[in-house]
């Protein structure tokens, strides 16, 4: 039997971990820091679909310097239907980054496996530099050596949603970062 759809997306949130106001304040700080560090360097902000788009959209509006934006999409283990599949680029860069200063903008770094793959890929494109800016750092299960240059928040080992982050493609439109009620995934993915 399918679970009854929630009345609003907020009903599936067990706890608000980071309020919208707190996120906006921190994003403004990160934007100002990046704008200062990259003044006169015309950086390219490379973001990874889909989770990072909300963060990217807010971040660039806090950076009042010339910059470019590009988007990539990388396949996820979860979406793989082949037991022997390998990660691949689903959407490549649309501009050349050789000789450019690249800032990789990530929503969350957990194991670091996706980012580790992406960094190797980007390095082969010959950028002048690559730095990492992430909103959320969840270091508990890190399996790759990732140096985070700009970090919004370090969060505990909880399953978080909102502000771009999803569960089963839902909850990206929450204006805050919340913890998903276990009953949502314990009873199977939400239906609607």
């Amino acid at each position, binding site marked *: 039997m399918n679970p009854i759809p929630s009345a609003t997306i907020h009903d599936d949130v067990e706890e608000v971990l980071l309020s919208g106001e707190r996120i906006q304040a921190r994003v403004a700080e990160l934007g100002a820091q990046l704008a200062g560090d990259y003044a006169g360097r015309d950086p390219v902000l490379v973001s990874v679909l889909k989770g990072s788009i909300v963060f990217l959209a807010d971040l660039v509006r806090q950076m009042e310097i010339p910059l470019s934006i590009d988007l990539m999409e990388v396949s996820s283990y979860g979406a793989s239907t082949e037991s022997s599949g390998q990660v691949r680029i689903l959407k490549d860069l649309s501009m050349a980054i050789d000789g450019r200063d690249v800032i990789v903008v990530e929503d969350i770094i957990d194991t670091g496996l996706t980012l580790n793959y992406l960094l190797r890929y980007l390095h082969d494109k010959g950028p002048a530099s690559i730095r990492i800016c992430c909103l959320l750092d969840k270091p508990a299960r890190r399996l*790759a050596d990732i140096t985070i240059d700009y970090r919004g928040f370090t969060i505990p080992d909880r399953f978080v949603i909102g502000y771009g982050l999803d569960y089963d493609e839902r909850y990206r439109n929450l204006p805050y970062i919340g913890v998903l009620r276990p009953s949502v995934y314990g009873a199977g993915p939400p239906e609607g």
Partner: protein
Amino acid sequence: MARILDYYQVAWRYEPDIFPISWNVDGVVVESFAPDFYLPEVDLYLELTTLKQSLVRRKNRKLRRLRQLYPEVRVKLFYARDFKSLMLKYGRLDFLADVTAMNGNGPLNAVSGGED
């Protein structure tokens, strides 16, 4: 776990090293610890734990001993809850249901057994 590492093109070796952690009075090794995986690119050992609490306690004790004796060795313990979180992140709770039905290092058994 092996399948996830392969997916993201992370090099790994299965139980490549055995660390003695206890000796008898004659100097004979009576207990050792062989972490499940070694990730050479990050110089990190990875140990997966079972859902059985008694085995988790034993493994925690062995890990503490390993860290005392070999402080330069980097070992990360992956609890069953960590694996569950990973599967939740990847939207693969169906796979977890298979894993939790097993004893011992369920995720590893699932891979070495060639099951899907």
